[in-house]
């Protein structure tokens, strides 16, 4: 798991590559939190290079999103690959997390 954080035109993009599973979610969380804890940020999680997500890792996505919303911002997931999309669909989280 690797994250790259870029900021452009008021949108902060966190690109995640590799795998988000039980072993790596905590690292992902601590890397993303400095961004999501800011007030009123618009965050996009770019999953172009994310190969796999475990359902446990979804919990982190949700609490990150709740954190951002509490600060008056938005958090959406973009460029979801089919294997990861399946997990989002299975758990019914596509609607709330994935950007149209």
């Amino acid at each position, binding site marked *: 798991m690797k994250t790259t954080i870029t900021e452009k035109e008021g949108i902060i993009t966190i690109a995640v590559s590799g795998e988000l599973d*039980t072993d790596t979610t905590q690292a992902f969380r601590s890397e993303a939190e400095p961004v999501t804890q800011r007030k009123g940020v618009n965050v996009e999680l770019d999953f172009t290079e994310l190969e796999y997500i475990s*359902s*446990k890792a979804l*919990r982190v996505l*949700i609490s990150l999103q709740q954190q951002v919303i509490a600060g008056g911002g938005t958090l959406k997931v973009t460029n979801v690959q089919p294997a990861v999309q399946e997990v989002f*669909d*299975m*758990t*019914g989280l596509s609607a*709330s997390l994935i950007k149209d």
Partner: protein
Amino acid sequence: MFLSEILHNFELVKLNLTIRQGILLLLIVFGLITGGVTYFTVRYFWGLDVEKEYLDDRDDMVILASQIETGLDRGDEDPFRFVEATALIQAKDENFSYMLRDSAGIVVSPPFMAGKKIPIKHFEARTKDGFGGMARVWGYDCFVIFYPLSHHPYELVAVYDYNYVFGDEARTLRVFTFLMLGIFLAVALLTWFWLTPVLESSFARRQRAEDELRVAHDLQQKAVTHDFDVDPRFEIHAELRAMKDVGGDIYLCGSLGEKLFFTIGDVSDKGTAAAFMMFMLSSFIRSRVQEGVSLDVLMGEVNRLICKNPEYEMFCTLFMGFIDLDTLEMEFCNAGHTRTLIDGEFLAQDPQLIAGIVPDYVWHTQKLQLHHGAGLLLYTDGVTEARDESRALFGEARLQAWMKQRPAGTSCREDCEDLLQTLASFRGKAKQNDDIAIMSIKIK
């Protein structure tokens, strides 16, 4: 704490010693090592210094005659053991002679133990000008040096006074000895009065945490169904392989007269909190099902129950179903749980949210017509997300392939055990990374 990790995994635990006993044992070993190092260092340097500094430059005496009897002469087991030495020595002045009589030392250096000191017990002066004496290897007053000849017998070379020769060295080495003793005492006291209590409390904390986990583990085992022999019209079996650090996999099943109720779920997160949540859900679902509540309503209630405790950041994937044993119609409700396999095909279902995130989310139920002989496999993501040594996932495809190749007529128990076996051989040397729960149902 690192040290307690080591000690905890160390043999001491297996020997069933308390921490104090273990530390005492280590201190005794440490004391023996320190003592040994001190003893041999003193012996080594003492001998060498004497040999170097004093042997050649003595001009205060003349050796008139000498004789030594060793173990070799007597046929002892240890042939080199020094037994007796006699010497006739002429001192060049009276003072030296007198001093020798009081506490003479003969230092021995056979070829195989250069510098070794042998104290002698008794030395007898005979005349004013010279004397002979008998030296026994015993006591602590005197030392002997023999210089090696090419072969036996050894020749007695010099007779020195212990204090006269060794004054400075003796002092240095005495200081060294006390220093070593001091180091040992400091380490021993520090270990005993500071480290031991720290280790003990860290052990106690660890023990408490383990006890807590054991309680949670028992809860998890007790929360799931164990009685699968409920109705002759269907067969059901389930297996749970929980991780040591306690997870939240759950399954329940039971007959409600004309209906079979079954559910499988996975409370996210590990640890005691997840196990308690799972235990609570299991009791709640059990009693609500018996009260005849419908699945969509029940799912909403479960959802609100989890949402009440947002600080735990928990959620739960849950699949619940009824099978009507007359019509064989299955009604099910799925909150984001893994896809159930029916006769080797994945159940088509509407995606619905996992429970515990949105308090007012509304779930709906779906229906499916089953047939006699139909087989269902429910599982948690510990199955599909099992990893082998190269970190490849077991995945849905392998699971589906496994189910398709199961021979007809096997019992649900055999199926569960075979799947667990398949997963174990898939993992190989990789460790189980999540709870695994499997439920197999067959309609007769």
